[in-house]
């Protein structure tokens, strides 16, 4: 029997957005931690670390998120972890985020003028102290707008994990469409919910960007 697209279907789709948000949050935390290491590696004094972090960015940015998802999903299973799909999904989103955040944050660190390194070295700060007290606070300001912008990409790409059976927004839309067969209403609703999540973040990113450049000559 074909069901109608009613309020209860709408609420099912709307509440499934919590998995989209949870996935985004997990990917941001895990991927952020890993991405921080990647950024530090890319700006390291040691060529081997720079090379390693650069290789990581090139490889991950050259593979579709869908394939990263399958690699984490089957890779974790082979490594002996019997994990629910949501964990494999979070891991793959975190790997994806680490490469893009690592590259964004590398740019931010390198846009801090090199005199800042010299001046802080002249004050006999250790490398860690230089990062902690001089470089990172300045890089942070520059990194915030593009990082917020990247969160939009992250939210949108969580739709891909629907393929391993996590019932987030896109998967919920698929399920409801299979039962009601009113694709325009169903996927229109799903798109509207994604838009309601992403658009405010996009606007925020743009505002932060403007504010960052407000103090500059150009």
């Amino acid at each position, binding site marked *: 029997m074909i069901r109608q697209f009613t309020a209860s279907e709408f609420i099912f789709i709307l509440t499934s957005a919590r998995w989209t948000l949870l996935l985004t949050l997990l990917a941001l935390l895990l991927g952020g931690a890993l991405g921080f290491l990647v950024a530090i590696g890319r700006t390291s004094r040691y060529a081997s670390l720079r090379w390693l972090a650069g290789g990581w960015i090139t490889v991950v940015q050259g593979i*579709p998120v869908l*394939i990263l998802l399958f690699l984490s999903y089957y890779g974790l299973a082979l490594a002996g972890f019997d994990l629910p799909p949501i964990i494999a999904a979070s891991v793959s989103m975190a790997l994806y985020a680490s490469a893009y955040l690592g590259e964004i944050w590398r740019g931010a660190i390198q846009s801090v003028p090199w005199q800042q390194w010299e001046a802080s070295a002249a004050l006999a700060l250790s490398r860690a102290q230089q990062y902690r007290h001089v470089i990172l606070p300045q890089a942070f300001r520059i990194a915030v707008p593009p990082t917020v912008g990247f969160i*939009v990409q992250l939210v949108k790409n969580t*739709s891909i994990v629907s393929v391993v059976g996590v019932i987030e927004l896109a998967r919920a839309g698929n399920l409801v469409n299979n039962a009601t067969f009113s694709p325009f209403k169903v*996927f229109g609703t799903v798109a509207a919910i994604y838009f309601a999540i*992403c658009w405010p973040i996009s606007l925020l990113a743009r505002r932060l960007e403007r504010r960052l450049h407000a103090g500059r000559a150009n």
Partner: protein
Amino acid sequence: MGFHFQFQPVLARSDLLLEGLWLTLQLAALGILGGALLGILLAMSRGLGPRATRWLIDCYVELIRNTPFLVQLLLIYFGLPSLGVKLNAEQAAVLGLVIYLGAYVTEIVRAGIESVHRSQIEAGLSLALSRWQVFRHIVLAPAIARVWPALASQFTLVMLATSVCSFISVQELSAQAANIESDTFRSFETYIVVALVYLGLALLLRGLLALLGAALFPAGSGLGRLRQTAR
């Protein structure tokens, strides 16, 4: 007992991989060409015509950039037939890719066009160039030269996004990977091979786009200098 990698069963199905690769290449080429053309046209027409044109184009850009490509694809593939438009999966995929990339290219090229200073246009007009010549040589070409790196990385992202077309049963590389996986049960090996193929494609595309950038905007010319500063 540890896991033993077995790549032979996967490589034995390289005919499927090649078929998928060929379709992925076609999707990427059509998507990039169509999306670039659509985006440049919209970025150009945004400054012309009535206010409503600009508003409509901005709405399109915001709507597409703030919703997942997958959902856009599902709307096109399942939604359009209910409006009486019949599309097969491949046609829906190409249409989806063009619409998706078009929004990003519009935004990138718009930023490039806005970076051209007014005085440049006035200088061009005072040299008795026609309006079209001014637009073509003084606005559009420098705008694209300046945003070329951003365009190139967006093109690469769209090539990778073709993998999402497997959701609507397009038999491109990712879909063929799923076929090989269910034939051979060597899941991890299959996706390692396919990941390497995508990685090779991405590096190749990046190299080609860098060469194209160097050919379109040669290093010695004014446009070439714009391209250099954009790095």
